[in-house]
């Protein structure tokens, strides 16, 4: 069975004015769709990998579970498909969102001192990722939260990669220029600051619970 582009949980314009409608439309129907198409094309040659599922495909990146000739295309497009599927869900209508709560909030405060300090670190990771990539808040193997950034379409599930900061992501931000250029152009810090207005903290909490239970949110 082939992977499919998941629908957005909201309309293209729902995240306005923080993330513009045109960006959401192109980001979803062109960029994410291309990752899905390219992943399917790559897996057509290795159908047994399709049975792994998207999360395990990502975990297999950097290990010998992936055939050498497909390793890069799977890393790039399997990563792209997971990352974007995850990303749409950690955003929501800006009028919906109330900030972190419950166990996730406690974990954030335990790891960073406060939600604001977590955001400061996250902003630095997002702004400091040179070139294309993502910033992540995730759960490490010892259960604590950490922040990292990854290049291109890598993600912290890809524990097989050298320099991997292995974590289960609970929040992520796309800082590829395609995620913000139409509205913010070079002003990536402004995009990052605006994006906090659309973070879906309920989903973040759900992701945190899943990670603590030993599963990977998708």
């Amino acid at each position, binding site marked *: 069975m082939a992977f499919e582009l998941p629908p957005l949980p909201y309309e293209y314009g729902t995240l306005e004015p923080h993330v513009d409608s045109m960006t959401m439309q192109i980001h979803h129907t*062109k960029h994410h769709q291309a990752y899905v198409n390219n992943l399917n094309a790559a897996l057509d040659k290795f159908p047994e990998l399709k049975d792994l599922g998207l999360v395990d495909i990502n975990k297999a990146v950097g290990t010998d579970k992936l055939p050498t000739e497909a390793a890069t295309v799977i890393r790039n497009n399997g990563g792209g498909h997971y990352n974007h599927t995850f990303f749409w869900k950690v955003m929501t209508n800006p009028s919906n969102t109330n900030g972190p709560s419950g166990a996730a909030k406690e974990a954030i405060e335990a790891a960073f001192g406060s939600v604001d300090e977590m955001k400061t670190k996250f902003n630095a990771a997002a702004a400091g990722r040179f*070139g294309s990539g993502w910033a992540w808040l995730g759960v490490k193997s010892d259960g604590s939260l950490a922040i990292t950034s990854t290049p291109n379409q890598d993600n912290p599930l890809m524990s097989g990669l050298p320099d991997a900061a292995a974590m289960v992501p609970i929040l992520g931000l796309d800082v*590829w220029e*395609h995620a913000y*250029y*139409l509205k913010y*152009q*070079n002003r990536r810090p402004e995009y990052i600051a605006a994006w906090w207005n659309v973070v879906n903290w309920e989903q973040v909490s759900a992701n945190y619970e899943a990670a603590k239970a030993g599963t990977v949110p998708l």
Partner: protein
Amino acid sequence: MALSMKVQASSLIAGQRRGRPVPGRRAMVTKAALELKAPPYPLDALEPHMSKQTLEFHWGKHHRAYVDNMNKQIAGTPLDGKSLEEIVLASWNGGNPTPVFNNAAQVWNHTFFWESMKANGGGAPTGKLAEAIARDFGSFDKFKEEFKTAGMTQFGSGWAWLNADKSGKLSISKSPNAVTPVVEGKTPILTVDVWEHAYYIDVQNRRPDYLTTFIEKLIDWDVVAQRYAAAQQ
């Protein structure tokens, strides 16, 4: 005056220098801050193939920021007062680049990129360069295809390059982020920026269309030919 280097391709981008005080350092003037060099044409000259708006952001914001950030990083350090080429090579640090590298190399790359284009560009090379392209790629069409493929397959941000060695042999390469073939001892003679900021205003996700337009309408083959000749000096 910036020192001219063995990398002949850099001879066009010496830039200008001015001294200015470093904040917080009493009565000390830096050797010089490197300046943002303007493209050799007005910002609307490449329309309709590359918009004025793109140039305003790409040169006026992105390239300018690389210059400003590099100058801040090197102020009062041993790199202060060196030529851009020296700063690029030194900060590459044998493949373990320092934080200066991303900014310095991007300063170099972008000037090289502006100077690779002109209004009413494109068309085809002539003379020795055309012969070398036919020899090393099979035909001009095959060169264009291969150069476009390099640009398309550089995943994420980066650049595609046409390089010449001292014997005149040509090769195509691609590089991620700020990396440049200069640090591998190669001599580029043409580049195209494939960071999304280079094309997103004009064609959004359609990088292949951007590359086709660059190849067909923008390349300054006279400059490329000059660089090609210089590479063999």
